[in-house]
């Protein structure tokens, strides 16, 4: 570190190198060192270096020092401040640092530097130091507003001191310094008044209430007060509140600056923000006040010169206003110092240029180049300087200067513009321009020339010209345009060059402005760059501002010319130092000037008009007519001019560079805004013209006295300085210039040089201060622009919202309509509903009424019903009671009847007893009669007997009664039994009937089955015969020889051998018949139901017998007839045979059933039997008859059925008889058996019938025994 330190310190001189690369390296090295190192060595070295060399590089490094080094820096500065010698550079450095606005700047209030600064300001006597210090303080104040609390009175004291200094001039410094000082104090006044109004006013009150200060107040402070409005804080705030740190917290630095500017009425100083600066109001007081102000303050000149100093050529167009305002006082009060002023100004302008060159190079290489110039320029004459600047300075510098120069040099432009234009453009255009523009101009001028104002205006041009070229003025006054052209031959080339450069510059500017739109930062830098680039840039800046100013004035043409006259009056005075245009004769001069030129009227006026026109045209459109001509060469300028031209307010001045932004950033808002402004401007311009014209006439004299602000004075001073400088430069050879200076200043050349130098410094300071202010404005403007953009955006939004609102309102309207329609519909529906509801209600009411009626009726009916029920209950109760009564009475009646019957019976008994009594009485009488006859004994006996008889009779009667009753009972019983009996009989009859029925059925069935049986028997018989026949055939065939045994059957057998075939069957048939007759015979014998088993047995036996031989059989058969005979007479013995069966149980068997049976079987059995018996006999008898005719008639045939048998026997008999005559003998024996058989036949039949009967009988007795005992009885009884 320690080793390095010296190295860095050694490096410092190298900062001044011309090698850019090396410079960069060194600068980087130093910065690196500063950033790494904490010590104060390097910094101190830097400060020292700066103080020694006033190096821009060092200053640049120092002003951008970082945080930790601030302390060192401030300490070092404080230390330096203590030394008288380096106080000024220190302050300069401090000013640079402060204007850089480092972040740590607020700390300064805590460092002793501030105190030392204040102390310096309080005590120092060097004006330059004071001015510089005041400017630093002014710059510093907004940065440390809260620090003012403790230092407030120090500030005020400083103000008081400097104000009084300005007036009293204790150090007898030169007027130029005073002007500078006045401007500074003016600024300080504004700052203090803006920041601490209450305290400041109270200070003023207290300080200037003292008599010794009254003069100062009157002279200095009061005019200042006239340039401010009443601060609102004076009304609302208090001293303490002003000092409250909280108050400042919401303000940024530029806010405070603007706040201070707001309260200012000075267009130079004031801000036009937020309606504070309403132009017309602002303007008039200015106009009115200025004369006074101007008269009172000579510094206005200085101030004005300051403005114009930077742009010598350019100031001319600006001149129209400022000169008239500033000149009067200038000329009036400072007629004497005029020349030195001009010379001074010349110097200062030179210095300014050089200083600017020296100070600016901080940023641009061109300024670096300029760096070298100041020293050289110092020694050089302004002319050389100019030439140097024109020829020597490279492009940009030149161009800027030229650029500024051309428009600014409208004074030369009065003559020069045509050539310049012709150079730039075809000549045709220029003449056309001039011609085109001039005639109306001329006309107007002519119109105006009639007025004093117009006449006065011409000199303005003269003064302008005089500002540029002193000689020109006389020539102008006397000669035509050509004159000016010839005169300014020297300038021609320069201006041509300048013009060229200027156009270039303008283009550049246009590009820059375009760039500015996009990048504000860049713009700032560029502007800053240009600032430092060249003083001319500043002039361009001021030019723009001035242009705007000019425009305001040009707008107020009447006012302009009015002031012009003064200026004209004064300028000739100044330029020519002619006696005629001396001090007080301004107005007169004005008038005289007018009258003087009245002779040369037309030409002069024309020329002047032409000059004016040209100047105007170069000034970016003085009038709208010219305006279009201007467009081609300087479009961007024109734009600016356009806005500037139409913006009548100083506020527009400030906003001029930004309005182009508006135009592009916010086209709509900007155009609207511009339109508004233009219309306003046009109106105002028109109005003001009128007013000014009048005023111009009226206040012609007063205008000279009108006060100008210190700044204006300064402007004018600078301008005049340059003017004089030029004039002197022209007249004098270069070497004599110094002599001139001495001549003007009246002081030693050294002193003069020093003065000039310091003045230059002051101007530079002033310039820097103004630049700072401008930066603050720029910052603010940017913010405002942002706000405007936001506002416009919001406006847009608002518009959109409004549109939407409209749309929605339309929607709402439509919806309302539909709502109304719906409401109507709804109302209709509601009405309908209402009607329906009412109708229904009425219906309901009616129904309810009906229902109520029904209810009431129902209730009535119910009550009636209840009544009826009650009545019914009562009646029922009555009925019951009556029934009870009836029952009771019935019961009673029964009882009574019983009693009655009892009583009747008793009565009968009574009557009976009475009768008895009577009889007894009679008997008694008789006995009484007899009694005497009979003895006493007899009577007693008789009586006793009577008694006993009576009793017996009684008992007998009783028994009779009993018997009778028994009889009745028995009879009844008998009846009952009879009925019962009859019932039973009936039942029995029914049963009998049923039984009969069943019996009949059974009998019929039995009969059928019997017939079946018969049929079966016949079949079997037949089969048997067949069988027998077959057997016999077999037998006869097999033992043919030994047939001796076979015919045992009788005598017929032997014959059988002869004709066995015939006989055997015959015989067999007989046997068969015999056999067949057997079973019946057996069956009756058994008298049992086992009839069928017998039959086979019988057949068997018969068969066996037949098989063995019919011999045994035959005898049995023969024998049998005897027992069978009784069978034949079965009918007779049948009853006896049946007797054992029927006896007990069937007493009257013959009576009913028997009869029936007989009836039933009569045909078959009895009658048949009878018939058969008869038949048998008759047949036996008739057999002979039949045998008579037919011998072969078989006897058995008739035995069968008599009628058939007759026929039957008739037919078959003959055949065998005929066929076998041999059998005739055999016929006899068979006839017998046949007879027997026939005889048997009947018994068999009888037996069959008998068997049937027996069957029936056997079944019947059982049945009868079981149940029909009574039946027979009853039947019998019934029958």
């Amino acid at each position, binding site marked *: 570190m320690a080793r390095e330190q010296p190295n860095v310190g050694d490096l410092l001189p190298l900062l001044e190198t011309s090698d850019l690369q090396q410079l960069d390296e060194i600068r980087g090295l130093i910065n690196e060192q500063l950033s790494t190192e904490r010590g104060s060595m390097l910094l101190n070295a830097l400060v020292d270096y700066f103080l020694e060399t006033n190096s821009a590089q060092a200053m640049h490094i120092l002003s951008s020092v970082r945080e930790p080094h601030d302390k060192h820096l401030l300490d070092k500065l404080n230390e330096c401040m203590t030394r008288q010698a380096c106080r000024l550079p220190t302050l300069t450095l401090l000013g640079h640092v402060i204007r850089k606005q480092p972040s740590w700047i607020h700390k300064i209030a805590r460092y002793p530097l501030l105190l030392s600064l204040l102390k310096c300001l309080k005590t120092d006597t060097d004006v330059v130091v004071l001015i510089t210090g005041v400017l630093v303080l002014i710059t510093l104040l907004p940065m440390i507003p809260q620090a003012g609390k403790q230092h407030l009175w120090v500030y005020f004291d400083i103000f008081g001191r400097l104000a009084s200094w300005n007036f009293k001039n204790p150090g007898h410094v030169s007027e130029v310094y005073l002007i500078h000082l006045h401007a500074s104090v003016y600024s300080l006044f504004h700052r203090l008044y803006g920041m601490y109004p209450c305290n400041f006013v109270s200070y003023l009150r207290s300080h200037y209430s003292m008599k010794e200060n009254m003069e100062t107040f009157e002279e200095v402070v009061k005019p200042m007060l006239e340039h401010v409005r009443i601060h609102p804080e004076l009304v609302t705030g208090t001293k303490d509140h002003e000092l409250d740190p909280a108050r400042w917290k919401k303000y940024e630095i530029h806010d405070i600056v603007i706040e201070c500017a707001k309260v200012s009425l000075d267009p130079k100083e004031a801000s036009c923000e937020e309606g504070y600066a309403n132009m017309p109001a602002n303007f008039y007081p200015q106009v009115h006040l200025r004369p006074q102000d101007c008269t009172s303050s000579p510094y206005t000149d200085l101030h004005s010169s300051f403005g114009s100093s930077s742009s010598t050529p350019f100031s001319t167009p600006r001149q129209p206003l400022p000169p008239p305002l500033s000149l009067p006082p200038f000329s009036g009060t400072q007629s004497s110092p005029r020349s030195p002023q001009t010379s001074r100004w010349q110097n200062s302008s030179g210095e300014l240029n050089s200083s600017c060159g020296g100070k600016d190079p901080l940023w641009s290489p061109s300024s670096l180049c300029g760096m070298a110039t100041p020293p050289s320029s110092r020694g050089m004459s302004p002319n050389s300087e100019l030439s140097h600047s024109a020829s020597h300075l490279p492009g940009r510098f030149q161009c800027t200067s030229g650029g500024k120069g051309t428009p600014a040099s409208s004074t030369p432009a009065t003559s020069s513009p045509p050539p310049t234009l012709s150079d730039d453009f075809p000549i045709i255009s220029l003449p056309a321009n001039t011609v085109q523009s001039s005639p109306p101009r001329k006309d107007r001028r002519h119109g105006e020339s009639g007025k004093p104002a117009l006449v006065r205006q011409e000199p303005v041009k003269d003064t302008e010209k005089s500002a540029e070229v002193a000689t020109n003025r006389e020539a102008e006054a006397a000669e035509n345009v050509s004159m000016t052209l010839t005169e300014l031959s020297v300038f021609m080339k320069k201006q041509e060059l300048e013009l060229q450069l200027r156009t270039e510059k303008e283009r550049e500017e246009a590009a820059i402005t375009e760039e500015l739109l996009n990048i504000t930062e860049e713009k700032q830098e560029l502007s800053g760059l240009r600032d430092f680039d060249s003083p001319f840039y500043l002039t361009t800046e001021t030019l723009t501002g001035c242009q705007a100013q000019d425009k305001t004035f040009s707008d107020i043409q009447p006012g302009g010319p009015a002031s012009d006259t003064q200026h004209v009056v004064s300028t000739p005075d100044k330029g020519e130092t002619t006696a005629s245009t001396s001090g007080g004769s301004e107005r007169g001069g004005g008038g005289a000037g007018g009258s003087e030129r009245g002779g040369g009227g037309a030409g002069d006026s024309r020329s002047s008009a032409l000059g004016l026109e040209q100047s105007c045209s170069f000034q970016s459109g003085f009038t709208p007519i010219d305006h279009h001509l201007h467009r081609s060469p300087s479009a961007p300028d024109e734009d600016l001019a356009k806005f500037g031209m139409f913006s009548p307010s100083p506020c527009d001045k400030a906003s001029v560079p930004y309005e182009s932004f508006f135009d592009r950033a916010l086209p709509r808002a900007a155009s609207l805004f511009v339109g508004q402004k233009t219309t306003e401007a046009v109106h105002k311009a028109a109005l003001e013209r009128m007013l000014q014209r009048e005023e111009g006439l009226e206040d012609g004299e007063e205008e000279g006295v009108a006060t100008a602000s210190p700044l204006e004075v300064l402007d004018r001073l600078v301008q005049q300085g340059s003017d004089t400088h030029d004039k002197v430069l022209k007249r004098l050879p270069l070497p004599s210039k110094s002599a001139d200076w001495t001549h003007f200043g009246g002081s030693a050349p050294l002193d003069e040089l020093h003065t000039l130098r310091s003045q230059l410094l002051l101007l530079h300071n002033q310039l820097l201060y103004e630049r700072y202010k401008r930066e603050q404005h720029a910052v603010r403007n940017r913010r405002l622009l942002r706000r405007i953009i936001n506002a416009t955006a919001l406006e847009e939004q608002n518009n959109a919202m409004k549109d939407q609102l409209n749309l929605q309102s339309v929607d709402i309207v439509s919806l309302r309509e539909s709502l109304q329609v719906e409401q109507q519909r709804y109302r209709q529906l509601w009405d309908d509903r209402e009607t329906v509801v009412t109708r229904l209600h009425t219906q309901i009411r009616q129904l309810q009424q009906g229902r109520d009626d029904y209810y009431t009726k129902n209730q009535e009916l119910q009550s009636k019903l209840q009544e009826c029920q009650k009545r019914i209950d009562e009646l029922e109760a009555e009925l019951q009671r009556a029934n009870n009564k009836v029952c009771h009475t019935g019961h009673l009646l029964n009882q009574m009847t019983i009693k009655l019957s009892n009583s009747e019976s008793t009565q009968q008994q009574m009557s009976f007893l009475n009768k008895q009594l009577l009889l007894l009485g009679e008997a008694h009488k008789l006995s009484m009669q007899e009694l005497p006859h009979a003895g006493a004994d007899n009577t007693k006996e008789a009586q006793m007997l009577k008694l006993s008889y009576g009793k017996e009779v009684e008992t007998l009667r009783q028994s009779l009664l009993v018997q009778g009753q028994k009889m009745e009972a028995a009879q009844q019983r008998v009846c009952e039994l009879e009925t019962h009996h009859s019932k039973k009989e009936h039942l029995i009859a029914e049963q009998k009937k049923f039984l009969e029925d069943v019996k009949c*059925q059974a009998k*019929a069935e039995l009969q*059928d089955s019997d017939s079946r049986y018969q*049929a079966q028997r*016949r079949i079997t018989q037949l089969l048997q015969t067949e069988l027998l026949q077959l057997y016999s055939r077999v037998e006869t065939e097999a033992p043919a020889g030994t047939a001796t045994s076979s015919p045992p059957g009788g005598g017929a057998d032997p014959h059988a051998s002869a004709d066995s075939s015939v006989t055997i069957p015959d015989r067999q048939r007989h046997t068969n018949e015999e056999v067949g007759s057997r079973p019946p015979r057996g069956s009756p014998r058994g008298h049992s139901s086992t009839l069928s088993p017998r039959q086979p047995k019988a057949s068997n036996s018969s068969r066996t017998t037949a098989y063995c031989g019919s011999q045994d059989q035959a005898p049995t058969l023969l024998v049998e007839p005897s027992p069978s005979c009784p069978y034949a007479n079965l009918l007779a013995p049948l009853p006896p045979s049946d007797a054992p069966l029927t006896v007990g149980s069937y007493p009257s068997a013959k009576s009913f059933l028997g009869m029936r049976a007989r009836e039933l079987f009569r045909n078959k059995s009895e009658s048949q039997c009878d018939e058969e018996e008869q038949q048998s006999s008759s047949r036996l008898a008739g057999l002979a008859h039949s045998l008579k005719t037919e011998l072969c008639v078989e006897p058995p045939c008739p035995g069968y*059925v008599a009628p058939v048998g007759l026929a039957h026997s008739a037919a078959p008999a003959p*055949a065998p008889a005929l066929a076998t005559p041999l059998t005739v003998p055999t016929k006899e024996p068979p006839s017998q058996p046949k007879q027997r058989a026939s005889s048997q036949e009947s018994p068999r039949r009888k037996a069959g019938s008998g068997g049937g009967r027996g069957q029936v009988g056997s079944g019947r007795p059982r049945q009868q025994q079981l149940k029909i005992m009574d039946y027979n009885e009853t039947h019998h009884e019934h029958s």
Partner: protein
Amino acid sequence: MADDPQRNFRSSYYEKVGFRGVEEKKSLEILLKDNPLDLEKLSTFSQRFPLPSMYRMHVWKVLLGMLPPHSDSHTMVGGYRKEQYHDILEALEVMRYVNSSTPCTHVYLRMFQLESQVLPRCSEISAPDEENEDFLSISRAMEEIIDDPIDCYWLIKCFVNQFHTKFGDSIPHLPKSLEHYLSQEEPRLLKHLKNTGALAQLPYSLWFRRCFAGCLPESSLQRVWDKVISGSCKILVFVALEILLSYKIMLLGITRPEGVVRFLCNIPQENTDAIVTKAIELWHKYCGTPMHAV
């Protein structure tokens, strides 16, 4: 009759007007509904009125004793009859009295003979005698009337039996009564017959033994037999009488007794219905309407 509530009150008027037998059917149905059929009533009805053909067979069966009066035992008895018939027929077939080619009437004859125990041996079978011829003619007529062989056989058998048992005695007297009635009706014809000597030769057996079987067509014959079955043989006399009366002109024209016999044996079949009707009327006229009690 009029008292009977079940009868139509118009029935008497029907008879007067000439519609006969309108109500008979109904009254017959009423009679047939009695459970033990009243044979007397049935026979009385049958004598008085013509039988409807649909009930004829049933009435016959009942009256001839083929079916018992109790309708409950009809089926059973019918079964018996059937079995008996088949047994007999089988026996006959076994004994080769009959075969499948034997005509029904002969079969019936054999069966009847078997039942009557007069069946000759197979070897002794000869041409049927007069009695058999009577049976055969009757059976032929009956066969025409009835389809079922069993019923036919039984009816034939019962008819023959009943006829013989009931009227066997009175048949010989019938020619006398015929002569008597003829003398009352047409003495001229009688005289003519007597004169020609045809009176004794009249076909009495055809008329009275065969009951006009083979003489009258079946439709007419039925009506005659109705009366016969219901217990009247006099009707035969009147039928014969009516035949004589109807054809008296023809008979009067025939002088030879053989011709008379021949003609009478083959009387034309046309007017038989009228003859029968007239005969019944005549019968009613002479014998009176048979009342309940016969």
